[in-house]
């Protein structure tokens, strides 16, 4: 360019290379910051002690139990990859306690296709039903008929209370949308705080007592709005 030569060739090239090197050096921490992987677990590990058992009154976060190898969906369902490559789906502890005694369970048929974020099953309690969102995409290969026949099985939501199994074509992609481990516990903590805030007038003295909430918290304590609450938390 003619005219306004502020910098001549060589020093300018040096500046360009220096800038590029400086940028590369800055890029590494920037990338790691954006991905946010390492810092989070350390922070939560300090706060959460031994694996929380449902019965122990240790404050709000101990109400809801999350096993290690389970991935949670924002609609409060969970997915767990089995050894044979299929994925088991169920309802999480929070949801189970929120809904309480379930009168009926409607499950998808084997061979049906479910999609992440779409309603796959329904729980009936009293005269109302709540939809449950599937945490993964897939084709249903097995269904827990026992749970459908005896809804009491759902007391063990991560074990005998499983709902159905699917063959997932893109589990890796689906899992990116799910919470697990410490992040899941952190999220459940947030969900229970949100729930507590909604129910606070009634729940206040329960928290002070340190007692664990009864099954069917929402129904017992706020019968008029329970389906609004259920919809809010189950996202259906």
């Amino acid at each position: 360019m003619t005219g306004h030569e502020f910098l001549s060739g060589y020093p300018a090239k040096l500046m360009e290379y220096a800038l590029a090197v400086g940028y590369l050096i800055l890029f590494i921490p920037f990338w790691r910051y954006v991905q946010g992987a390492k810092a989070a677990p350390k922070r939560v590990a300090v706060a959460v002690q031994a694996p929380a058992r449902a019965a122990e009154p240790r404050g709000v976060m101990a109400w809801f139990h999350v096993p290690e190898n389970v991935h949670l969906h924002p609609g409060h369902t969970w997915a767990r990859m089995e050894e044979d490559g299929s994925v088991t789906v169920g309802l999480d502890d929070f949801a189970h306690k929120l809904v309480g005694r379930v009168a009926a369970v409607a499950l998808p048929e084997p061979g049906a296709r479910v999609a992440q974020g779409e309603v796959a099953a329904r729980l009936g309690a009293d005269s109302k039903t709540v939809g449950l969102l599937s945490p993964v995409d897939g084709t249903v290969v097995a269904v827990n008929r026992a749970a459908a026949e005896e809804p009491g099985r759902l007391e063990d939501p991560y074990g005998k209370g499983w709902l159905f199994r699917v063959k997932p074509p893109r589990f890796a992609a689906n899992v990116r949308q799910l919470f697990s481990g410490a992040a899941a516990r952190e999220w459940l903590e947030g969900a229970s705080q949100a729930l507590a805030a909604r129910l606070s007038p009634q729940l206040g003295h329960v928290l002070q007592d340190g007692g664990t909430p009864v099954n069917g918290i929402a129904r017992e304590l706020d019968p008029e709005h329970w389906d609004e609450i259920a919809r809010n938390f189950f996202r259906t």
Partner: protein
Amino acid sequence: MKLSRRSFLRVAGITGSMAVAAKAAPAQAASPFETPGADEVSMLVDTTLCLGCRGCEAACAEANKLPDPPADEGVFDEPRKTSTTALTVVTRFANPRDEKDPRYVKRQCMHCVEPACASACPVRALDKLPFGPVTYHPERCMGCRYCMVACPFEVPKYEYEKALPTVKKCTFCAARQEKGLLPACASVCPSGALKFGKRGELVAEARRRVYGNPDKYVQHVYGEHEAGGTNWLYISDVDFAKLDMKVTVNDASYPQLVKGVLGVPPFVMTLWPPLLMGLYAFSHRRDEVSSHTGGEHGSKGEGSHE
């Protein structure tokens, strides 16, 4: 015409550096001693000879069927630019050497050897004729005004006030030239300030005058290298910047600036499909695997497994 040794060396130096510039200039300059566009028609404007009679303006207006230029000398009081109704204008400038002898400069399209406007026009409404002039085809023009963006001399003028607007600029009287006539302006110039001829000869003539009279002329032929070379050449004894002439114009041709960029689309069209399909295959490979291994379990409506 005597050439002193100093001016000979100057000429040699100029032509030597022109060899470097020739790399950026059009391929017509096969040897460093050849001028780009040497066979194109050209005009040499010697501002030391111009009387400011503005006969060129009147002749141009008549030849192009434009309104007569304003008659009174008051036009010289202000800087002038060409317009949609005046394809050439003469402006008066003060002469620092002699207050009583102002300088007059005729401005019009420079008819570049590699015109930015013609290369910019997507429908070739502005196009360069092989023998030199850059001409305009109003029936092709869509009025995008990219020629106005491109021209470093700010020559093309647009008829914004019209419902069917066209671009206006000097056409070097290409039609007259094709009939063997001189351009209108040159045909009436009384003082010999306008000299018509082939570019190669006129560049040589300009250099002779300029480098042969270093005490008189500014040691530069304006238009020799500007924008890669223009067909309208100017020599002057007053600094060109004081004559309102654009002195920050590149020495390389403007179309050359975009040459590299224009080479990219065919590459993208060739390279992108295989690249994207490769990425597609790579990111879908897990789907392939899972659909293969899962094939035995059955996909639609087979019995439950428990």
